[in-house]
């Protein structure tokens, strides 16, 4: 899922400065699961903005709405009537959600209330970790399901850098060495032969190179 975290209240105040009637729009999908932009967070952040605005002597009207998914037209349409009533929208969706709303309501300022961080998983309660860099050419099949592109600080594809200490990464001692994990995993599943394969320099043309990416499935187009 997409993992995000909220901006600070002063940052948000600065973003919505000049507007008197704001809709804080939450998203019921990824950002709800990562506790950053769901219905509960919409309620908390709206309340904080109202408190902060009254405190600074410039009270603003802050309303709340959460839709099922901000990156999907079907759900965005359900918010159309509400969005029209406000000067601006503070979206607590991920970067995709914010842009989806902004594209569909071109006369309405739409601001991002979250910092979208990464594609990751819930490691344990309250801890999310990055697992995928969305490089566009997945190599997980060769590395026992552990991604060296994302989890190795140096994105090494042909073995460890040699700088790790015991099983810790030399760049970030809080992180395990991805190559230590890969070797252990391949050994456990008896696939260490895969390590003999030499990877050429990674082709980043399938990643963000050349601008944003589009996938077209003709079999699904109308």
């Amino acid at each position, binding site marked *: 899922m997409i993992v995000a975290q909220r901006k600070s*209240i002063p940052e948000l105040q600065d973003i919505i400065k000049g507007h008197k009637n704001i809709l804080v729009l939450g998203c019921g999908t990824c950002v709800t699961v990562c506790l950053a932009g769901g219905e509960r967070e919409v309620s908390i952040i709206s*309340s*904080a903005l109202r*408190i902060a605005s009254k*405190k600074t002597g410039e009270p603003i009207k802050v309303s709340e709405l959460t839709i099922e998914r901000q990156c999907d037209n079907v759900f965005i349409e359900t918010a159309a009537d509400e969005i029209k009533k406000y000067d601006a929208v503070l979206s607590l969706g991920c970067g995709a959600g914010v842009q989806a709303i902004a594209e569909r309501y071109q006369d309405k300022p739409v601001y991002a209330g979250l910092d979208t961080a990464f594609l990751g998983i819930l490691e344990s309660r309250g801890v999310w970790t990055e697992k995928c860099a969305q490089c566009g050419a997945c190599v997980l099949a060769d590395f026992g399901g552990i991604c060296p592109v994302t989890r190795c600080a140096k994105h090494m594809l042909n073995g460890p850098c040699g700088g790790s200490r015991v099983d810790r990464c030399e760049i970030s001692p809080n992180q395990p060495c991805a190559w230590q994990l890969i070797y252990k995993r391949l050994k456990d599943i008896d696939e260490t032969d895969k390590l003999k394969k030499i990877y050429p320099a990674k082709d980043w043309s399938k990643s963000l190179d050349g601008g944003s990416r589009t996938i077209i499935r003709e079999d699904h187009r109308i």
Partner: protein
Amino acid sequence: MNDNTFEPKILAFCCHFCAYASADLAGSMRLQYPSGIRIIRTPCTGRLEVEYYMRAIENGADGVLIAGCLEGGCHYIEGNLFARKRVTATRNMLEECGIDKERLRMVNVSAAGAVNLVQAILDMVDTIKQLGPNQVNPKAVTDSLKQGPESPAACCLQQEAEIE
């Protein structure tokens, strides 16, 4: 505002098994605490959401006191520990909003801790009296307005009227 006339309104969320029992005991023991304390009984402090604290401050409470069981003595094992973390996070958020974080406080008392609970309440009242009324409170705004049109609260009230 003069400390002699300002009686803080403090919302006290008390857990059923310890703090509320303490408040009950305080009554039986004839212990006195200011009348501005409004006690709300909750099954466990772990049940309390961050929104409750934010809404209380937003709607004009001068302070919010969370009173749970002693750490290690929670009827629901660790509800009070979760509450402590949420209170800490909310205190930080209140600071971001420009509200003194001492307006939200958590204490732990046992079911027999009537004296401790009353002391915690009195400490909270003292702190809030020093901080003054919650400026988010519409009534505090009105009170300040009486003191002069140049006050920040008067400005706040005027702008609110403009929006409406």
